[in-house]
């Protein structure tokens, strides 16, 4: 049983006109076994939240803390956070030229586990993980994300989720830009991960579409850098019908 707690998180970025505050006090607790959907309009700060948890150097935490089982992970480097059990599926996965997927996955797995995976089973595991997200095993020989289509990049993120099997996964708009088949493949991957029962998910999305495949335990409306409302699945239905207008107007006041 693990717990990810985000407390009063304030984050800013450097812009040409100086510091700009994006997250304005986020409070959220995710227990293992729970799926939390975070839904918000474009520009509300969802990716900023995801990146800040993962530790991207572009974002400056000005206040608050993020605790993983009581430890403030904001004091950890990016790789230490990952080894502590955090995973971020990125909205725009990065291309790393010349580094093969196979080499990348083995290096990551070795880092996360603290020992190299067994050679005999590992290749099979990688191929199986790729095939589960309908990526041909030949992808293992390609450079990380280079020349992948948008959908292939997202499926590659989910293959990593399954191989690295973190305690908590933050999925940043993994559903965006996917056709219906890819959406199903990606959702099935996430569901396999959560079916372990002791994993937590922060599912960031702009659309309610993915919630037909992944059933969240909690739904949060995210507007203007903080949570505007929290509830159960019915909140997603309400957003589907009414959109974010009401919350955006309220936040603007």
């Amino acid at each position: 049983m693990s717990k990810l707690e985000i407390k009063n998180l304030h984050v800013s970025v450097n812009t040409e006109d100086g510091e700009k505050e994006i997250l304005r006090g986020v409070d959220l607790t995710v227990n293992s076994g729970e799926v939390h959907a975070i839904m918000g309009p474009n520009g509300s700060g969802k990716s900023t939240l995801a990146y800040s948890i993962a530790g991207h150097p572009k974002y400056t935490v000005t206040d608050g803390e993020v605790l993983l089982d009581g430890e403030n992970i904001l004091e950890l480097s990016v790789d230490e956070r990952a080894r502590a059990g955090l995973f971020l599926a990125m909205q725009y996965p990065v291309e790393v030229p010349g580094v093969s997927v196979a080499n990348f996955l083995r290096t990551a797995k070795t880092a996360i586990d603290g020992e190299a995976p067994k050679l005999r089973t590992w290749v099979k595991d990688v191929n199986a993980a790729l095939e589960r997200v309908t990526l041909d095993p030949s992808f293992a020989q390609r450079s990380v994300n280079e020349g992948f289509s948008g959908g292939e990049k997202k499926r590659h993120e989910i293959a990593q989720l399954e191989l690295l099997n973190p305690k908590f996964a933050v999925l940043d708009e993994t559903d965006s830009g996917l056709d219906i088949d890819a959406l199903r493949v990606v959702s099935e991957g996430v569901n396999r991960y959560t079916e372990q029962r002791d994993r937590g998910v922060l599912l960031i999305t702009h659309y309610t579409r993915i919630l037909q495949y992944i059933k969240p335990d909690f739904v949060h409306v995210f507007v203007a850098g903080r949570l505007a409302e929290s509830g159960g699945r019915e909140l997603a239905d309400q957003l589907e019908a009414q959109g974010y207008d009401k919350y955006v107007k309220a936040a603007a006041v």
Partner: protein
Amino acid sequence: MTVIENALEHVESHLHPEPSYELEAHPVPNGLEEIWRFTPLKRLRGLLDGEASDATLTWEQELPEAATLTTLSADDARDLAVNAPFDRLAALAAAQAPSAVVLDVPANAELDEPVRLTLSGDSLEHPVWGHVVVRVGANARAKIVVEHTGSAVYDAFVPVVVGDGAHLDLVTINDWEDDAVHAAQYNLRVGRDATVRFFEISLGGDLVRTTANVDYAGPGGSAELYGVYFADAGQHIEHRQFVDHTAPRTSSNVLYKGALQGQDAHTVWIGNVLIRKVAEGIETFEQNDNLVLTDGAKADSVPNLEIETGEIAGAGHASTTGRFDDNHLFYLQSRGIEEGEARRLVVHGFFNDIIRRIGVPELQERLVTAIEDELAEADFSAIHGRPEPGTPAGSIGAAGGSDA
């Protein structure tokens, strides 16, 4: 002189002087000339003085059957169907070397093992003048690996004649000790429908300046020039190319990649391409990428395209110089990979694009290790804007910090 040269128009350009074996044709440079302005002449250890010397490098060779190593008089070497020296250093090498060493691969020979030459020096006292000829006969296939090691002040002129339909891979490795000075000019003539892949890997030496000049004896020839270089503090590594498209439907592809680290590490890449009037239907692309790993290092990168005909299939160039991409490192680190390991992967990936093309697995592994050794010496705390290792990434540049 060959017919093709007589048929070519004269193209006046400060980028590529007239080739000649005569020393008088190449005045002693003052350092301001276009072809010299990047080179720290003072660090040539007097090479330009042209001191007579019979010092030599120690040669070790592995010659597959069919390949031979003989000598040629300097006069005979001048009659080879290849361009004369383009600058004074190359002219000096040709003039001062007592004779030319000739590596021959006869026509139609297919070497199943690479030719390996290791040239090593153990003294900086006297200059070593080298005149090394590579001749690959028509339709032959050969891979030649030349390694330079040790300490020397070495100036070489290296004509490379590639027969019609031949396929040559020429791999040169400059893995000198820190104090070596090495100037080299490779003048390659690519036969009709021949393919040449030229690699240069420059890791060591105080000053390395090489020029690869390519032209074509007939249509259909292809030249690929690849470079990998890694400059440490104080090192000057300069790679110049001049691809002269002298025949129709020829192609050239130039790709040089370098990394720099440490105070006054300096690299220079000059990529000149001339597309002559006769060179219709040619295709050329040249690219140089530099990865600047620390402050205090400088990469100069100058592509030049001169186009005398509009009837070409394609021509382009690209040049990038940058630091580690934060997003690359972030992505790898977000999968648990430590920062140092992430840097290693990124640099490996950066160079791998070229190294994997060499096609000699043992050599490729050695080069990867050599580059990792270079990287291991890096002091990344000198990187501007990067945190000391161990600094919480979430608070980079933070005014308050995360516990406020």
